[in-house]
C-alpha cells in the first residue's frame, strides 16, 4: 500500500517544490492543501502517514493545525514536519512544543526532506 503524505502550504511554488522532492524519492501519494481549512477537510478522508506544514497561513495557522492533529485520537500519531523560515524561531519552538516531530528551515535541499521521509516512514 502506498504511503499518503499531506502538504499544507499556501505558496504554490513551495508546494510544487516539496511534492516533487517527495515524488522523486519514492512512490508516495501526495495530497496538497493551500490552506489549513483544506487540510481539516482532507484529514478525515485519507489515512495520512505524514503531514508537512507551513506555519504562516491565511486561515488557521500551522500551530493550530498541529495542536488540532495532536489532540485528536485519530491523528495524534501522524509524524508532523514544520516548514519554517529564518526569523520565526519563536513560532517554530511553539510548534515543536505542540508536538511536531521535525522542522526544516527554508531554504532546504530536497535531500534534507528525503532524509526525514526515510527516518519516519521509510
Amino acid at each position, binding site marked *: 500500500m502506498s504511503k499518503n503524505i499531506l502538504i499544507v502550504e499556501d505558496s504554490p511554488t513551495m508546494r510544487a517544490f516539496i511534492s516533487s522532492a517527495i515524488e522523486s524519492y519514492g512512490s508516495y501519494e501526495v495530497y496538497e492543501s493551500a490552506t489549513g481549512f483544506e487540510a481539516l477537510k482532507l484529514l478525515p478522508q485519507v489515512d495520512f502517514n505524514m503531514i508537512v506544514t507551513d*506555519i504562516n497561513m491565511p486561515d488557521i495557522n500551522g500551530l493550530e493545525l498541529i495542536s488540532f492533529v495532536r489532540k485528536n485520537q485519530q491523528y495524534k500519531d501522524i509524524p508532523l514536519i514544520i516548514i519554517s523560515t529564518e*526569523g520565526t524561531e519563536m513560532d517554530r519552538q511553539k510548534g515543536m512544543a505542540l508536538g511536531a516531530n521535525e522542522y526544516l528551515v527554508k*531554504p532546504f535541499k530536497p535531500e534534507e526532506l528525503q532524509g526525514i521521509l526515510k527516518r519516519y516512514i521509510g
Partner: protein
Amino acid sequence: MEQNKAAKEFVAESEELIDKIFKDINEIDSVRKTGKPNPDTINELFRSAHSLKGISSMFGYKEITETSHKMEDLLDKVRLSKVAITDQLIKTLYAAGDMLRTMISSDTFGKGMDVEPLLKQLKDAEIGKQAEQKDTLFDGLTLNKDILSVLTEYEESRLRENIKDQNNLFKIDVSFSLLSFDKELADLTAQMKNFGEIITTLPSTTEAKEGEIKFDILLGTKVREEQLTAGIDFKNIKIQNIRKQTVVAAEEKKSADVNNGARGVLDETTSIKGIAQTVRVDISKLDYIMNIVGELVLSKTNLMKIAESIRQEIGFKGIAVELNKTIKDMERKMRDLQTGVIEIRMIPLSQLFDKLTRTATRIAKDLGKEIELEFYGADTELDKLIIEELTDPMMHIIRNSIDHGIEPADERIIAGKPSKGKITIRAYQKGNHVLIEVEDDGRGVSLSSVQRKAVEKGLLSNTAKPTREELFNLLFLPGFSTKSDVSEVSGRGVGLDVVKTNLRVISGMIDVDTQEGKWTRFTLTLPVTLAIIQALLIESEGKRYAVPLNSINESLSIGADEIRIIENKEVIKLRESVIPVIRLPRFFNFHTEKPEKADNYYIVVVGSGERWIGILADRFVGQQDVVIKPLGKLLKGTRGISGAADIGSGEIVLVLDVSVFIEEAVKV
C-alpha cells in the same frame, strides 16, 4: 531532479506576490492619512514578502532573497507595532517593491544588481520604537492556556494591541459540519469583521459531536457583548467575554486612590463620557417616536381647523391672531422634529454595499468569472427600513449582471474588453428621491431577441412595432427571460418581476437601459423615507385620496372638453405630447354615484422619462403631511395603493402607489 514545475510556479507566484505588495502598500499609504491601517493589510504585506523570500531562497536567487528578507524583517517589526508607519517607511517599501519587480522581470533574475544601498535603507528604517518589555497584559484574561500556546508571535502581538486599545475580547465557540465548515465559517467571520479584528481561529474536534468540527474564534472589538450578540446573525454560537474587566478596573482604581483619592472617581466619569458618543437604538423605538410625531401632526391639523373656525366666527383679530401665530411657530418646530427623527433613521448605503461586495465576489467565484465592483456615493443616506428591503432586489440585479451580463473572460477579450468584468454602482440623491444605478460592461440585452421571445410567448403580435421602452418593460413581466438556458445562479424562473414587486413595497421603481454588446444599466428610484410624506389630497367622485407630493410632476386644471378619446382611452394633450388619463374610481372598481357632468377637472401628472400619466380629480383638497400606515390583511397587495393615512378628525384616505399608474401609462 525534476524541478521544472516548481520553477514555472516561481515566476508566476512571485509576480503575483509583487502585485499584491504594491496593492497593500498603496492601501496602507492611503488609509494612514485618515486613520489606522488595517492590521490585516499590514500582515498580508508581511506575508507576501515572507513568501517571496521563502521561494526565492529555494532557487538560490540571492539578491531577491536578501531584498525580500530585509523587507520582511522590516514589515515584521511594523506588524508587531515595533516600527511606526512614516513617510520614510512607505518610501522605502515602494523602493524595495520596485527593486523586486525589476529583478523578477529581468531574464537574469537580478543577478549582478547592486542591492546594497536599498538593503541599507531597509535596515535603517527598522530603527523605530524600542522593543517592549515583557508585560503582564495577558494576566487579565480568562483564556485557556491551550489558546495562548498556538498563537503565533504576530497573533500574540495583535492580542496585546487589542488589550492596550481597551478593546473587549470575546471567545466565540461555534460548531459546523465537517463537510461544509469552510463556507459557513467564512460567513461568520465576515460578519464578525464588521465589529473588529479576528485574532485567531482555533479548530478542535475533541469537544465536537461526531462529524462536526468546533472552532474557537478570538475577536477584539470596541462593541459590547449585547451589541455583538444582537449584530451577529448566526445560530448556535456561544460568546464569552474573556476580559476580566471588573478586576482590571478595580486595580486601576486602587492605584489611583493611592495617588489621589478624588482623581480615581473623576477619571472614571470622564472615560464614560468619552464612550457615550453614539447610542444604538432598537428601530422599533424609533418607529414608536415616529408614530407619535405622526399623531402630533394630526393634532396640529385639527388645531388649525379650530383656529380657522374661530377666525371665521370673530374675524382675524385679538385671540385669533395670537392663535395663528402660535400654530405657525408650532408648525415650524414640528417640521424640525420630523426631520430630526427621520435623520436618526437614516443609514448610509455603505452598509448595503459591503454586503453586496461579499456576495458578488462569491457569485463571481462560483461562476468562474472575474469581476470588479466600483461604488460611488456610498455615503448617500436612506431610511434603514428601505435599505433593508433593498438588499434582496440589489442582490438579484447584481447576480443577474454577473450571470447574464458579464461575459466569460475569453469572450470579453475577443470583444476587445478587459478580461475582468466591471460593475459600477452609483447612488445619489435627487430631490426627495435616491437613485441607485447598477451598470455592468457586459454583453447588454439584445432588443431583437426580447421582441422574438415576446412574440413566442404571445405577449406581442407578429406585426407589432414596439418602442424601446415597451420592450424594456417586457423584461419585468413574470417568467420572462431571454436566456434560454437556466443557470444555477440567477435562473429558476425568478426574474426581474420579483425585483419589481419587492421594490414596490418601498415605493421604489426600476428602469433599465442597455446597449447591445456594451453595457446594461438598471436604475432604481427610491423615496428617502417612508415614514412621513407630504401629500396632495385629491377628491374624485366623492372619495379622497392622498398622492405623495414627491411623485407629482405637475398639476393642472383643464376643461372637460380637453379630454379626448383615442383608441378607447381617455387622453389629454400636454404640451407636445399626448398622455393617458386615469379615473381612480374606475381603476379601483369603486361603485360611486354617477357624478354630474363637470365643466372643469384637475389633473395630477406623474411619471418619468417616456412614461407619463394624468390622474383625474374633481378637486384638490389641499396639501398635508401624512403618516402612511400599512393596510390590513384584506387590502394588502391591492394594486395602486401603498397604504392608508389618517388626515385628521378621524378621516382615513388611501395613499396612492403612483408607480402602478405609471406602468398603466405604458400599457395604453
